[in-house]
């Protein structure tokens, strides 16, 4: 496992300056080609959705069904990852286009936009991989590092993980409601109701659309459409889950304690973002389908930079990391995903922290 880089305050300041300069350079260059890219993606997602739903509703036989499912899954993945996620990060706010604005955009997924913006943009992006603060770390149900307390239920976590992966959109959707706090008695019923309202509204709408409205439009073909929509949602769930888990839970992705990150400087923040994230390598289509989260490191450094730019600056970020002796965690999809699965299995058992990195926590051992 890679070690955390130790930089002195001067080096951290230099790192921050270099990365800030990189951001300024890209921001000044934003323009037509970025606008064209996101518009092209929107058209592509729409075309794919129309084709997919059309094939499911009006097609005959298993082949048109399978193609329809793939087209619809492709549309949903593109919409959730390359469009929704990125637009809601504000990557295209500068275009002044009300249809591509982070304040108004709502995506095709059961997760309500207001919940996601809070749990993802605020908690996860700012507190990346800080145990106890980044609630995306293990999604409140997985133990991925020895620094997390072991409970007997962790023994079943490979199974929990499978459930989460299959229902990932639901996992993301209820994440910000923080049910755990309710069950521990730290949230009133009233507050729970209040917090769940956007989720219930959004979930009802999504369920109705995919499992009532579109099937009904197909008359006697309704089972075909219902099943197709279910499969497309499943494919989307598995894919987004795999990509997102590869972003922060690979073997070399570091975690941080609250103590380590108190009074963090800008340079330190950048350093944590790099060390808590991992990249995936692949072709252009792969990056697009991952919403460029395959460039998780760059995305975490500059969350509001239009995604295709992340791929362009990646070699320069890598070069900067090399100069400062920071491990740049990047590998192919299967190589990274294997280490994620390994972590899920290994830490199902009561593992102990490596001695040199162990934190003095009374409840360990």
């Amino acid at each position, binding site marked *: 496992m890679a070690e955390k880089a130790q930089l002195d305050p001067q080096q951290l300041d230099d790192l921050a300056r270099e990365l800030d300069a990189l951001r300024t350079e890209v921001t000044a260059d*934003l*323009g*037509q*080609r*970025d*606008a*064209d890219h996101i518009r092209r993606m*929107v*058209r592509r997602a*729409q075309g794919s959705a*129309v084709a997919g739903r059309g094939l499911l509703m009006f097609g005959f036989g298993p082949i048109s069904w399978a193609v329809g499912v793939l087209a619809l899954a492709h549309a949903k993945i593109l919409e959730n990852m390359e469009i929704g996620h990125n637009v809601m990060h504000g990557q295209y*706010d*500068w*275009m*002044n*286009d009300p*249809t591509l604005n982070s304040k108004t955009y709502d995506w095709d997924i059961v997760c309500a936009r207001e919940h996601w913006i809070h749990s993802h943009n605020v908690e996860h992006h700012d507190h990346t991989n800080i145990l106890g603060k980044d609630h995306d770390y293990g999604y409140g149900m997985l133990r991925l590092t020895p620094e997390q307390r072991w409970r007997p239920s962790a023994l079943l976590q490979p199974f929990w993980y499978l459930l989460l992966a299959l229902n990932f959109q639901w996992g993301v959707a209820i994440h910000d409601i923080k049910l755990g706090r309710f069950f521990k008695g730290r949230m009133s019923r009233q507050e729970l109701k209040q917090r769940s309202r956007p989720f219930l509204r959004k979930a009802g*709408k999504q369920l*109705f*659309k995919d499992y009532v*409205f579109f099937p009904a439009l197909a008359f006697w073909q309704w089972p075909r459409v219902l099943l197709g929509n279910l499969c497309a949602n499943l494919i989307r769930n598995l894919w987004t889950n795999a990509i997102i888990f590869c972003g922060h839970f690979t073997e070399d992705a570091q975690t941080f304690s609250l103590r380590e990150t108190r009074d963090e400087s800008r340079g330190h923040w950048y350093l944590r973002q790099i060390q808590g994230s991992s990249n995936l390598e692949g072709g252009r289509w792969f990056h697009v389908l991952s919403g460029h989260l395959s460039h998780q490191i760059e995305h975490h450094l500059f969350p509001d930079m239009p995604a295709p730019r992340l791929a362009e600056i990646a070699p320069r970020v890598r070069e900067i990391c090399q100069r400062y002796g920071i491990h740049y965690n990047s590998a192919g999809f299967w190589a990274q995903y294997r280490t994620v699965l390994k972590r899920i299995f290994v830490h199902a058992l009561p593992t102990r922290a490596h001695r040199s990195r162990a934190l003095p926590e009374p409840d360990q051992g």
Partner: protein
Amino acid sequence: MLRTDTPTQKRRLGRLIEPFNDRVAWDLLLQRLNPTWSVGEIRARVIRRAEESDDTFSLYLQANRHWPGHQAGQHLRLQVEINGVLRQRVFSISSAPGKTRATRGQLRLTIQRQPGQGVTDWLYQNARVGQVFTLGAPGGDFTLPAAVPTKLLMIAGGSGLTPMMAMLHHLAERGHVGDIHLIQLCRKPAQRLFAVELDALARQLPGLTVDVHFSHANGRLKLESLTDRVPDFDERHTLLCGPNTLMEQAMTFWQGRTTAGPLQIERFAAPRPAGQSGGLLSVTASQSEQMFTQIPGQTLLESAEASGLSPDYGCRAGICRTCLCRKTQGQVRNLITGLASSQADEWIQLCVSVAESDLQLDL
């Protein structure tokens, strides 16, 4: 049936039939077939471009069926995409309203290129036949009174002639016989707009006098001389559109002359704030959690834009109130009314306001 539903019921129904009521999605589909098609947006294609002087040109547009028709003197909002960014500017329509369904969508804009990297400069260099633009609905109350006064005075400075052209064409079509005195202000003969068209209009409108004033040769128009220059000055209903300095002077002049007839004005731009001295004032935009400084000589809207924020706007001249924003703290001055707003929690128009203290805005 829908009309009797309450808004919440409508919204609930709307949610259920999504995406079939998603206008943005339908527009996207339609525009693959034809860029002017839309379920609700006004879109128009450029069918002709004509140069009117060395820095002014006209765009003849054919709008889709969503164009509701305009009144002579009204303006519209034109949206352009410049290097990926959507920007809007307001332009007066310089053609008379079409009378039939077929001609209703035929519009002409006459645009003067302003120095700098603004929208008009981009249009001057890039506007071509075949391009499609999104438009806003017609607006503004710079229109002729319902009962057209028998004696009119029009004072048009530079491109301020555009709304008057629409009015003159409209009056000519109606066979208007009343007296119209048009004072056209331009710097030099080469910059005079619509010379040929005005000649033709003078032949159709028996009461029209075109009175051209070249400021380069004859100096600025002196408003005190209006009473000598224009017969029956006090009996006339005046329409004025031109540079801000002229408008300020005219307002003072009219206020000082109690016998003068009514004055109707159209502003093309917010008055320029005087550059302040003293320290830089900082503005906190609380919603976007950003700070920017009030740049001397710019409005709050321009200062916010200069620092990368993009507040909503329409006319940029204090007319449409699209830029309305809640000020939670501090004092601003409205450049049109000259009034200060110093109370917390007041609504201000960003496009015509400048900060007079540090501010906090709900932006």
